[in-house]
């Protein structure tokens, strides 16, 4: 059961960067998600791990052993692709037994193995079906059984849920992870779907331009994004620029133009620094404008993971904007507020609030300062930093 280590992996495809100094440790039996936008180098990273692509630079270790030059077929790292790649015109049983037969297992052990594997993946009695007679979910289970039967200890999943319909996709998230976990596989799951990664991963590695920008537990990546890009890619954020006015006591005061001052975490920068502020839209609160009473301070629930000291109750602020649109999304609604000087600020609310607000209404916007991250202003500008290509 291997522990995988990537050391400074780089790969160029002509002028395109595939990997640019990837370094990563994956624990034995861990379920790691590599999350990133299209073209970020997710698949390249995975192909390098299983040996289908060889890196220009850097080393790969399985259990401390250097496998960089080991051929694909000896690595015992199996890939599960988007389309599952079940061999066409070969039935389920023969697909599952592809690996064992290569190794020259006798037919009796093969039969026993196939029974076990199909049992484990809830595909009993379907051994003689052909791949095109199976549903997407079933195909995926067979592909998994095939991977397990080959004796692989590392499972590489390339967008394994992408080809399924939305509902099934949600169901299979749990099933896939628990199967991998129960087999004790070290799994690396590549996806561009942040919800999938947040729900499934033990840890998430966010990749961009062939580099890991942040590696951490889902909660950490979500709550403590390392860069504005992560803040926006993993769960949408309101992001705007401002100037740091004051910092201390765990909070900072940032002037965001046209008389708007907001509170956020203390980033430890000097006053006067140009910064970006990012707040998850789910942490952005709105309330009706009440002429006398200022909005209530928000300090009810603070996540235990936060290492930042609790802010003092003096810290409340709000600014006003006018509701531009209200999007109904089912369980949630997103209210888009036009704030002069800041642009559009979104707030995600439970759908029971749908009737509470109207388009055109003026509202107060605020958030708990501990939920707002502060970043130095990116060198190449805000657009380049947030770009998803």
């Amino acid at each position, binding site marked *: 059961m291997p522990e995988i280590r990537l050391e400074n992996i780089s790969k160029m495809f002509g002028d395109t960067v595939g990997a640019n100094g990837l370094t990563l440790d994956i624990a034995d039996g861990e379920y790691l998600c590599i999350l990133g936008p299209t073209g970020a180098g997710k698949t390249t990273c995975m192909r390098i791990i299983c040996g289908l692509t060889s890196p220009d630079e850097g080393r790969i270790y399985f259990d401390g052993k250097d496998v960089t030059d080991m051929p694909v077929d000896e690595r015992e790292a199996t890939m599960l692709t988007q389309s599952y790649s079940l061999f066409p015109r070969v039935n389920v049983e023969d697909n599952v037994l592809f690996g064992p037969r290569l190794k020259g297992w006798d037919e009796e052990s093969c039969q026993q193995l196939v029974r076990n594997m199909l049992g484990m993946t809830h595909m009993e009695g379907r051994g003689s079906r052909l791949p095109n007679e199976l549903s997407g979910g079933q195909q995926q289970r067979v592909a998994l059984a095939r*991977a397990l039967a080959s004796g692989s200890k590392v499972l590489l999943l390339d967008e394994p849920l992408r080809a399924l319909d939305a509902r099934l996709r949600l169901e299979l998230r749990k099933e896939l992870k628990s199967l991998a976990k129960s087999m004790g596989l070290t799994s690396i799951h590549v996806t561009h779907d942040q919800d999938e990664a947040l729900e499934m991963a033990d840890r998430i590695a966010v990749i961009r331009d062939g580099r890991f920008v942040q590696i951490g537990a889902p909660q950490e990546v979500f709550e403590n994004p390392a860069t504005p890009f992560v803040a926006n890619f993993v769960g949408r954020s309101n992001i705007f620029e401002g100037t740091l006015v004051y910092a201390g006591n765990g909070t900072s005061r940032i002037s965001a133009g046209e008389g708007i001052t907001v509170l956020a975490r203390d980033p430890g920068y000097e006053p006067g620094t140009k910064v970006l502020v990012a707040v998850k839209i789910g942490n952005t609160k709105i309330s009706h404008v009440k002429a006398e009473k200022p909005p209530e301070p928000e300090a009810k629930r603070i996540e235990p993971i936060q290492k930042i000291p609790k802010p003092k109750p003096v810290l409340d602020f709000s600014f006003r904007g006018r509701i531009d649109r209200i999007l109904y999304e089912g369980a949630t609604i997103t209210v888009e507020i036009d704030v002069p000087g800041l642009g559009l600020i979104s707030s995600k609310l439970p759908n029971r609030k749908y009737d509470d607000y109207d388009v055109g209404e003026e509202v107060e916007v605020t958030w708990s300062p501990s939920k707002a991250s502060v970043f130095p202003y990116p060198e190449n500008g805000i657009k380049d930093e947030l770009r998803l290509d």
Partner: protein
Amino acid sequence: MSIFKRIDDLSSSPRIRKGWFSAALIIFLTLIIIPAVFVLLEAVIEWESVSEVLGDPTMTGMIWGAVSNSFSIALIVTILDIVVGLPMAWILVRRSFRGKRYLDTLIDMPLAFPTAAVGISVVMFWGAPEGVAIPGLGLVMSPYLIVILLHTVFTFPYMVRSLAGILDQIDPSFETAGMTLGASRLTAVRTITLPLFRAGLVTGFILCFARSLSETGGTYIALQMLGVSSSFFTGPTFIKYMKDLPGADPTGALIVVSVIMIVLAVALLLVAKYMMNRLRLPWTKVWPVWERRLSKGLAARSKDILTFVFLFVIVILPSFYIFAYLTAPSGVADLNSLFGAIGISFAIAGIAVVFNIVFGIPMAIYIARNGNTRLGVLLDNLVNIPLIIPTTVLGLSLSMFWGSFNLPAGAAFFLVTLGHISFTYPLVVRNITGAISEVDPSYEEVARTLGAKPFRAFSKVLLPIVQSSVIAGAILAFTRSLGETGATISISKDVVTVPVYIMDLIEQGQYYQGAVAAMILIVICFILMFGVRYLTGRRKQGA
């Protein structure tokens, strides 16, 4: 350790894999491409005799006559094919009616006919050549016209197939959308669907043009039966005529005509490829009233009727007419020499096909998987070259190339086989390349991550997926080799394959014997052709 296992182990070394591809590449270049175009170099080596020919006005006149006959016939035939092929393709793809399957098969039939057999059949049907017992239409036509009619027979299926293949992929909803927006059917087809046809038109054009340009056996037989084989020439029959001419050394003339044909054919291929990217059919102007009138009623129906009339009168009847010989008072067929010739034909075709599969597959894999690299594109284009060089020229070039090595006299069979390898190579490699590029590479990659070494991943995963295309390509190449005349006679007179045997019989005026041999050859090719249809049909259902 079994040999299979040993290959498997060897295949895991990248150096061995690279070596295997290099071997395939070297074989492709030295056995197929270089001999095919060696005549260009020979023109420089033999400059003296070339310039002598160029200085001889009667000679240059004959050469120009032959070449311009070849190219103008090919052009007329191809345009005819396009004009009739379009409505035919439409009927095959967009209409559904009872018996469509049979029509589909019927159109492919001339592909199974060796051209030597078609040559006899077409002349019998239209004319009334001396010495033929079966009465035909008895029309007196110029050899030029007869050759056009003959070439139309075996090029028409290529055109219909290419056009139908593309049409099948064009979504009819474009036309429907156009019609819901108020266009008449003709307007919709002309302005919306037709411009999407470029690729099919160009492919069909190249196939038909090259086939017509290349054809030797059938054309020579037709000219022979009309008694004009020493006064009317196409490029390939001119080469045959010069080679057979007693006395004078034909080298100079042969080189000149070959070089002209190669250069023009390659130029044509390049222009066609260029057109594929550039050609626009910018007829956006519409004539609503006229087009609406032409879209329905009598005009539309007569278009369909004319298409069928063309198919039966110009293509099907003339090619089957040879079977009328079954009613002839039977003479004594010399089956012994016929079966000797069949044996030679089968041996050559078999060796050529096996050779092409073994050395063509690595090439096909490379082209399919590296279609975007510079080498991949280059090879993709090079593979087409033997397809467009007229086979007679190819054979001549090849025999000049190997002639410079002073091979022993018994090497003729070997050289003819090499010639057949050369012109069937594109058929095999094209087919396999097409099939492989449609297979998602992830199948092999997954097999590799499951522990398969490269050779196993190929033989257990990729090969089973593409095997029907491999077999289809092989049978196509096999029938093509069986029917080939030009390459065989331009390499050696001593290797008597079936078409050469038939041609000899016709030259001696033994029409009955020739017809029997032709019919037997047709039946053999038919059986093979139906094998292809069965295999490719099954693949479509299985996919």
